[in-house]
């Protein structure tokens, strides 16, 4: 095999989802947003730091037998705004979706303010952020007003 042809080959999936054009290094954060831990038993391929014409390097996730809901798709935009979602049916790309940060981000991020009501464990308040600005991304906790910026989002993802 010539060096140019060297590539990481993953067998084709019949049905499922390919998340392409994830910024390099963000694949694991995307998996956290989707609550995919590996324990679900889904056949999943995670490719990291592969060459990309558009991004230089990128990550790719291929999940067999799971089609993502539009709510899940949009939450991905929090850490991977460049991602494209390819829904695969019968081995071919059936649908291609772009991701967009939703207006309301519910139950995905933990508020960094320790005295926010959403951090009182016994009250079970679901965290909620609204988009204050899309670019640069700025989110605001609906309950306590705390502002978070793009670079803080990843560490605030709930497990």
């Amino acid at each position, binding site marked *: 095999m010539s060096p140019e042809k060297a590539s990481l080959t993953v067998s084709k999936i019949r049905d499922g989802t390919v998340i392409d054009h994830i910024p390099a290094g963000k694949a694991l954060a995307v998996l956290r947003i989707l609550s995919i831990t590996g324990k679900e038993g889904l056949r999943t391929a995670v490719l990291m730091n592969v060459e990309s014409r558009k991004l230089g390097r990128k990550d790719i996730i291929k999940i067999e037998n799971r089609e993502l809901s539009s709510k899940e798709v949009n939450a991905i935009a929090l850490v991977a705004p460049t991602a494209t979602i390819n829904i695969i049916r019968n081995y071919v790309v059936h649908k291609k979706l772009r991701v967009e940060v939703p207006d309301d981000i519910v139950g995905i991020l933990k508020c960094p303010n320790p*005295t926010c*009501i959403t951090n009182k464990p016994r009250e079970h308040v679901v965290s909620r952020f609204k988009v204050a600005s899309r670019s640069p991304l700025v989110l*605001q906790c609906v309950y306590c007003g705390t502002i978070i910026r793009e670079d803080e989002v990843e560490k605030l993802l709930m497990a």
Partner: protein
Amino acid sequence: MGFRGRDVISILDFTRGDLEELFGLADYFSSNRRSYKLLEDYVVALAFFEPSTRTRLSFETAAKLLGAKVIGFTSEEGTSLAKGETFADTIRMLDGYADMIVVRHKNEGAALYAAEIAEHPVINAGDGKQHHPTQAMLDLFTIWKLFNKVDGLVYAVVGDLRYGRAASSFIYGLTLFEPEKVYLVSPPLLRARPEVVRVLKEKGVKYEEKRSVEEVIGEIDVMYVTRVQKERFPDPLEYERVKGSYRITLKLLEKAKDHMKILHPLPRVDEIDPEVDSTRHAAYFTQARFGVPVRMALLSLIVGVKP
């Protein structure tokens, strides 16, 4: 939008027009001080999960003067919260008994959460460091009474702008009007929070951060003073070094405009020298008295009744 049937969580939920309607009615109650039967068939719950004197008593006085029945508690002690009942369950219970719930709580967002749970209107009487909308309403009403306007004046908000909910709410309240300029005067550690500054920017209010009152004293029409607490400083020496810059003394006031007025949400400890009380600048006792008519106006408007 009006007040009828609405929750009062943040002053930013209201418009200038709403506040002007509130001021008009507060003015009426202020000059017609007697008891009314407007809220005769209503029960107002005062749920003070965190202690309070002024806010609680002024709500209680306001509700009683309007003829409402008042129930409630003033700290978690002696309630079933001490036994482990959740905040949510306590609110559900009060919602079953009362037509309106006034909530104070140490956590930011508690009032909004209560409003999501309760069917009846919830009034935020202070949630952690975040909002204190009824304080801002009475602060702005005081200025409206003293100057016949809120627009066009130069303000200095002084002290702990980071953790002080009264200061933050006052700043938010000013953004509903057209102040000439707002100076944010605080030690660097206690600067206004990013979300507060963001609103000033969004609303196009001219503002500037300063470190001492001296720098702006000759320019301002209204000084809103809050306390700089020693506990906020990791280094006690740093506190000793800066505290003098936030103390209001007769000497400092020599440089003030004649008509400059000093407001303070109270209680005050030592941030305003007692000698200042007898000067024409002191407006904080008048301000405190307006707590009752402003809250009478608010309760009436939420129920949708007028004298």
